[in-house]
Every structure is written in structure tokens, then in C-alpha cells.
């Protein structure tokens, strides 16, 4: 069965032309097409970092010795801690944490050195403002390394016995696909799906409800145009727009963020095309439910939220409970993330992608 007869094709094409003409005159929508990718790229790409460094840290030092001085200077040199000053006591530390002036209080207790030399393994107390776990996590896990470094450096000669022997084996980690643990590498390809979801669903949703809201749908339906031709005519322009957006993002990824590209550009565009089509279907579904453009907008955001949260864009997919993973797996964006990261960062081919999880 052919969907288009010859006159049908011509009607469909006229729909497409009309849509482009209207789009050309609609400055706001046009601005959105270009503006949303650029804005989101800038915000997510430059502003967001899930591995924050240089966090304000206050010290409470109640024991001054060579080893505590080394600890402090090593902390100062680490990327994670920015020592902003010394506080007299724990009370002051608590207050500073509560006010949010600092992220960490590092407290070296009285008799630290003495107890250490006695082999009592005294503790350096660290109080962290852990309201946002992402902010503190990496910094805290770096502390043990700091201490081990200090111990090996300062505890030499007879004191060396205080340093426990390293385990007889070691972990050799190879960070694949993103050796420097660069947040951009994850976020920027992820943004491609997020931006496409947002603009594609919203725009088709609006494009069709706009006709209804302005009464022009009645006219379209009164003409010998079949509903399929209306829909297909509405879709094509947005597929083109989606591909343009994807290209913009890819160019930005390359030029602004230096993201390596290992896979085939053809595979990527093919995947993008399918993804755009999936989103347009969602948009059309929304437009058939919404009575006006405002409702279409609200529904789009209702759809957008789980996409952002459960697709693995914001938070690691594997960290989600089973039920959330099931929901996530229903969303096109989840799969698109995997595919895009697979192609861009891992150089996956179709065979790999088909089975990728």
C-alpha cells in the first residue's frame, strides 16, 4: 500500500512548504531552534561540573608539628581543597558550615602527633557539608590518598614502621573512553538527546495545536487533504530542524569542548534520525490530546521531566532502582544516550549498538 498518491504527494509537499514559510516568519520559534541548543550547551557544557574542585575549607589546628604541617601543605596543594582560613574551635567550625561559608572543616586534634607516634592511629576529623553528595564525594575520597602520601613522605627512618605495608597487589585502573574523567565528555553528547527531545516534542506539539487554536485546522480538514498528509507535512520540517540542531551540537562539541569522535558520523546521523522521528511521534500524540498551545507546552514538560531525570543524562542509570530503570528504558532518550555515547566516545558500530545496554 502506498501512503502517497501522486496528488497526495503534491499536497504533502505544499504542506511542507507552508510550514517552512510560517517558520521563517516566526522569529521566536526560529530563535528557539538555534537558541536552545546554544544556551543549553553553554550552561551544561561550561557551567556544570560533577567533579568540583577548589572547595572552601577551614582548618582547626590544635597540634603543631612537622607532620601536621605537611598534612596542611599537602591539602593546600591538592585540587580539591582551598584553605580559606583557620578557626579557633569546633563551635566556630559548625557555625561556618551551617552558614554555608565553607564546605569542609578539617580538625587536627590535640596530641595528634604524640598519639600517632604511640601507634594509636589518631583521626583527623573532617566535617563536610554533605547536603549535596556530588559536591563532597570526590574530595572526600581523595583524602586517603593525601594521607598516604604524607605518611610515606614524612615518616621515614625508624618511623617508617608506623606506615603499614602496602597490599601485596595493586589495582591498576584504566579509565576507558574518558581517561581524564572529563564531565563534558558525558554531558555534551547527552545534551544532544536532551535538546532534541525538548525542541522536537514541543515544536510538533505546538505546530498542530496552533492550527487548531487559530481555527485553521477546520480549514485544512475541509480541504481534500488527508489527515495523514497534514501530519506528514508537519513532520518533515521538524526532522530537518532536528538534524540541523544535531549538527550544531556536534560542531560545538568538536570546536568548543574538544570531544573526540571515534565512531562513524553516518551511524550517528542515522540514529539521530530515528530518535527525532520517535520524538515527533510523541509530539503529535501530545498535540492530539492538547486543546491549545498552553496545554501542549505543559504536557511537553510533563514528558520532559522523567526524560531528564531517568534517562541517565543527569544521574547514573545504574544507580536507579529497578522500577525507575524500567521507566527509563521506556523513554527514547535513554536509548539514544547509550547510542550516542557509544558512537562518539566508544566508536561503536551498529552491531555493538544493537545489543548495547
Amino acid at each position, binding site marked *: 500500500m502506498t501512503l502517497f498518491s501522486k496528488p497526495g504527494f*503534491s499536497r504533502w509537499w505544499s504542506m511542507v512548504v*507552508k510550514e517552512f*514559510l*510560517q517558520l521563517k516568519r*516566526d522569529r521566536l520559534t526560529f530563535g528557539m531552534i538555534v537558541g536552545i541548543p546554544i544556551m543549553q550547551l553553554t550552561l551544561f557544557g561550561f557551567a556544570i561540573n560533577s567533579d568540583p574542585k577548589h572547595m572552601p575549607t577551614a582548618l582547626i589546628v590544635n597540634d603543631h608539628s612537622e607532620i601536621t604541617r605537611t598534612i596542611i601543605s599537602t591539602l593546600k596543594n591538592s585540587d580539591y581543597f582551598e584553605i580559606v582560613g583557620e578557626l579557633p574551635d569546633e563551635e566556630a567550625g559548625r557555625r561556618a558550615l551551617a552558614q554555608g561559608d565553607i564546605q569542609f572543616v578539617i580538625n587536627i586534634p590535640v596530641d595528634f602527633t604524640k598519639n600517632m607516634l604511640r601507634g594509636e592511629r589518631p583521626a583527623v576529623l573532617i566535617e563536610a557539608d554533605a547536603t549535596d553528595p556530588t559536591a563532597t564525594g570526590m574530595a572526600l575520597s581523595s583524602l586517603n590518598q593525601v594521607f598516604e602520601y604524607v605518611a610515606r613522605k614524612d615518616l621515614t627512618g625508624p618511623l617508617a614502621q608506623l606506615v603499614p605495608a602496602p597490599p601485596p597487589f595493586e589495582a591498576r585502573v584504566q579509565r576507558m573512553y574518558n581517561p581524564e574523567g572529563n564531565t563534558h565528555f558525558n554531558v555534551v553528547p547527552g545534551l544532544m538527546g536532551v535538546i532534541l527531545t525538548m525542541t522536537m516534542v514541543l515544536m510538533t506539539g505546538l505546530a498542530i495545536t496552533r492550527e487548531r487554536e487559530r*481555527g*485553521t485546522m477546520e480549514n485544512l480538514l*475541509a480541504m*481534500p487533504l488527508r489527515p495523514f498528509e497534514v501530519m506528514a507535512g508537519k513532520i518533515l520540517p521538524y526532522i530537518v530542524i532536528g538534524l540541523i540542531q544535531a549538527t550544531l551540537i556536534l560542531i560545538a562539541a568538536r570546536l568548543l569542548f574538544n570531544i573526540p569522535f571515534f565512531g562513524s558520523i553516518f551511524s550517528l546521523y542515522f540514529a539521530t534520525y530515528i530518535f527525532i522521528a520517535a520524538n515527533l511521534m510523541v509530539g503529535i500524540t501530545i498535540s492530539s490530546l492538547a486543546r491549545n498551545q498552553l496545554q501542549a507546552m505543559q504536557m511537553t514538560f510533563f514528558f520532559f521531566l522523567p526524560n531528564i531525570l531517568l534517562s541517565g543524562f543527569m544521574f547514573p542509570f545504574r544507580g536507579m532502582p529497578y522500577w525507575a530503570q524500567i521507566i527509563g528504558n521506556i523513554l527514547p532518550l535513554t536509548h539514544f544516550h547509550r547510542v550516542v555515547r557509544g558512537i562518539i566516545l566508544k566508536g561503536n558500530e551498529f552491531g555493538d549498538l544493537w545489543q548495547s545496554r
Partner: protein
Amino acid sequence: MTGELAIDVRDLVKTFGHKRVVNQVSLQVKRGEIFGFLGPNGSGKTTTIRMMCGLLTPDSGSGTCLGYDILKESAKIKRHVGYMTQKFSYWEDLTMRENLDFVARMYNMDNRREAVDEALEGLGLTERANQLVGALSGGWKQRLALAACMLHKPELLLLDEPTAGVDPSARRDFWEELHQLARKGISVLVSTHYMDEAERCHKLAYIFNGNLLVQGTSSEVIASQHIGTWAIHGEHLAELSEQLQRTPGIEQTVLFGTVLHVSGSNPVLLEKQLRQAIAGTSLKLEPMETGLEDVFIYLMKHTQVNGDKAV
């Protein structure tokens, strides 16, 4: 095939929610006839028209439009019918030419360019063809819509208040054109609130609260209600009008400036009451032909009363 009838629908019913908007409406429009469709706001005119051109499926009832079944052959109906919606429904962010061209493409017209040029010329808008439609005045939009729905030379025009907001001279031109089209065998169903337009139709139908109350030529419609009407000429008629409304035998008074139309269904009683009422004043009383407007207002008031009783 119903060769002679352009529209032949029977017992159309449409319910929105709990409200029966169109109730058992049957309409016959002959080919080459201009058929006026009248009724107060919200009476179901637009809904009926939408059912006739296949845009809305009736809950029950059946019929044909240009010989095509309104339930099953809406695609064919759309091809041969020109429907002008009540609300302006062309694209304001396209130019006039683009709008007309789009319509022409939708009907797969071969001589697109000429047809569009001709339509623009007919409108006298050739110089402004590349202006955005959104910038047109209301009346011009209306005229553009008319031109657009006639572009594909339909055999039947369904016009939903086509002249609302159009100036008198343009309205006259428009009706001239309708009559010319009718002479060529094109049928027209036109809804309107203007009495002068109603009088220019070959046939009329009056719908009220979804019920078709009368159907026929203008004189048939007037005769069907068996009411007599008198005119009272003079000043300060408002008080008299109020007083007469409470008088038995007088069913309706309509004030037009210095003329008061008074109607009633019992001619003898009506005349007696009127003579009494103006006795001793300088007012002038004379019998007159009952007009369409008098009949329509009468119909409306009467049905309302009946409706109230039924509740």
C-alpha cells in the same frame, strides 16, 4: 443519485455533552438555489453545516451532499464543496498570494497561477498580493476567505456568515456574484443574520435551539405563521410598545425608531386593541405586510415560550 438536490439531509442529530445542539434537522437544497440559513446565536447553524460537509459526524440521521453520502463519502464532498468557516481560518502569517496558492495546491488545480491571479484581480487586491494576511482589515479578510473558498470552482458553496463585518457595497457585490453563480447552476447554502440578505435568498430555513422551525420561500415562511402586522408612526413609541406588550391579542411589538411594528395572530382582535390604544393620540396606524424579521422574532419568542412550558 439525487440529481436535482444539492443537499438532501434527513433527521440530523448532534449532541455535545448533554446538550442536543441539532435536533432532527432535515434540509433540502435544490441545485442552482441560494438557500438562506437563519437562526439566533447558538441555534446550531454552524454545527449543521459542518455535518453536511463531512467535518462532523452526526449522532444519527443521514443524507447526501451533491449526491455523496455525508457519512461515508466526505472525501468526495470536500473536493466539490467550498466551505467558508464562520471564524476566519486562513493563515495570517502567509501572504494573500501564498494563501490562495496553498488552497489551489490542496485541490491539485492545474491552472494554479491563473486561478490565483484571477482571484486576486477579482478582489482588486493584485498590488497587495504579497502583504501578510494578518495585516488586512476584518472585512478584507472576509473577502479573501470568500475568494479562497470559491477558488476551486465548487459546485456547492457552504458559507457560514460570509458577510459578517463586510461593508454594504461589498456585500451587494457579493450577492450579485452569488446570484450569477446560482444562474450557472452552483448551489449555495448561506447562513446570515441580515434580513436584507435573507430576502435575497430563493429559500430560507429558520433554526432555533437545534430545531428547524420553518423552511420555504420568504413568502411561504411569512404566510406559515398566520400573523398580521400593523405599523404605528409617531414619536415616543417606547412607552406605547411596553403597554401594548401587556395587551391581550398582541403578541409582539418591535420598535424601529419612529415606527412600531405590532403583530398578532388574531387579526380582528389585533385591530380592535390597536385602535383602542391609539385613540385620542396623534399617532398614525396602518396595516402592513408582515416582514421576515417580524416573523423570525415572533418564531423565536414563541418557541421560547413553548420550550419553557415543556420544561
